[in-house]
C-alpha cells in the first residue's frame, strides 16, 4: 500500500485515516489484510507512533479495522459502505444536470474541491 502525507493536507491523523479509506476503496487493501504496526508505520512516515495509533483507533471505532492479539491490525473492508459515496456522486450528477453543468465542468468542480 502506498501512503501519501501532504504538508497542509490536514491533520496527520486525518491524513492517515484517509489513506486507509482510499486504499480500501481502490482495492489496494482487501478484507483481512494486515496493516503495519504503529511503530513501523510511524518510523516510515516520520511521525509519532501515538499519531498512528490514534488513526488506527479511529478506524477501529468506525469498524474499518480490527485489532487482534497475535494477528496485529487487520482490515475489515466489508464495513466501508461504498454506497454512501456512490449515492453522493449520483446526487452531484443529478444536481449538475439540473443546473446545466457539463461533465467536464462537474469534473473541474470536484478537482477544485479536492485540492
Amino acid at each position, binding site marked *: *500500500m*502506498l*501512503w501519501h502525507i501532504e*504538508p497542509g493536507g490536514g491533520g496527520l491523523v486525518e491524513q492517515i485515516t484517509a489513506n486507509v479509506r482510499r486504499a480500501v476503496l481502490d482495492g489496494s487493501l482487501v478484507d483481512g489484510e*494486515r496493516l*503495519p*504496526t504503529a511503530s*513501523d508505520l510511524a518510523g*516510515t512516515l516520520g511521525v509519532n507512533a501515538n499519531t498512528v495509533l490514534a488513526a488506527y483507533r479511529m478506524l477501529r471505532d468506525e469498524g474499518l479495522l480490527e485489532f487482534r492479539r497475535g*494477528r496485529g491490525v487487520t482490515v475489515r473492508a466489508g464495513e466501508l459502505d461504498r454506497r454512501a459515496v456512490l449515492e453522493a456522486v449520483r446526487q452531484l450528477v443529478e444536481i449538475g444536470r439540473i443546473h446545466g453543468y457539463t461533465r467536464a465542468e462537474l469534473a473541474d468542480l470536484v478537482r477544485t474541491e479536492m485540492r
Partner: protein
Amino acid sequence: MAQRKAYTSTVTEWKSAVGGTLVALAIGAVVVLLARSSTTGIGVTLGGIALFGGAAAVHVATVRLSVSADGVGIGAGVRGRTRWIPADTIARSEAVRLSWPQVFGIGLPVRRLTTRLTVRPGATLALRLQSGERIWISTPDPATAAAVLDRDDNEMKRIP
C-alpha cells in the same frame, strides 16, 4: 513537514505456513516412532511439535516491508524486530519475479550472500547493498516500493 510517500506491505503465504507445519509433524512422527514412545507420549509429543512447528511456520511465512525515501524496514512474522536499512547503503533496488526454487535458495551455482524474506514466488523487491549483500523481499507491488526509494531501476525483470 515535507511531502512524504511511503510503501508498506505484509505478506503471509498460508501454503508455506501449512507446509511447514506438516513437515514439522512428519519429522516429529519419525522421531517419536524411532524412540518407541507410548501412545500417550506420542500424542503429547506430536501435539507439542505441531504447536511449535505451526507457530514457527506462520512466523517465517509472514514478511513485513516498509519503504520510504530514507530507507527500508524488513521483518519476519506479524510482529517483532525490524531491520532498518538506510537508503544511502542501498546501491540498487528493482522489482523482480522469483521462481519457486529461488524462493528457497535451491539451485547452483552459489553466488553470494542473499538474505531471503521470500515466502512465495512472483513479485519481489530485490535490493543490493553497497556491502554486496543481496536482499529479496516478497511484496505485492515491488515496482512502487522501488519507486518510493527514488531509484531508477524499477523495471520488472527475472533474476538470471
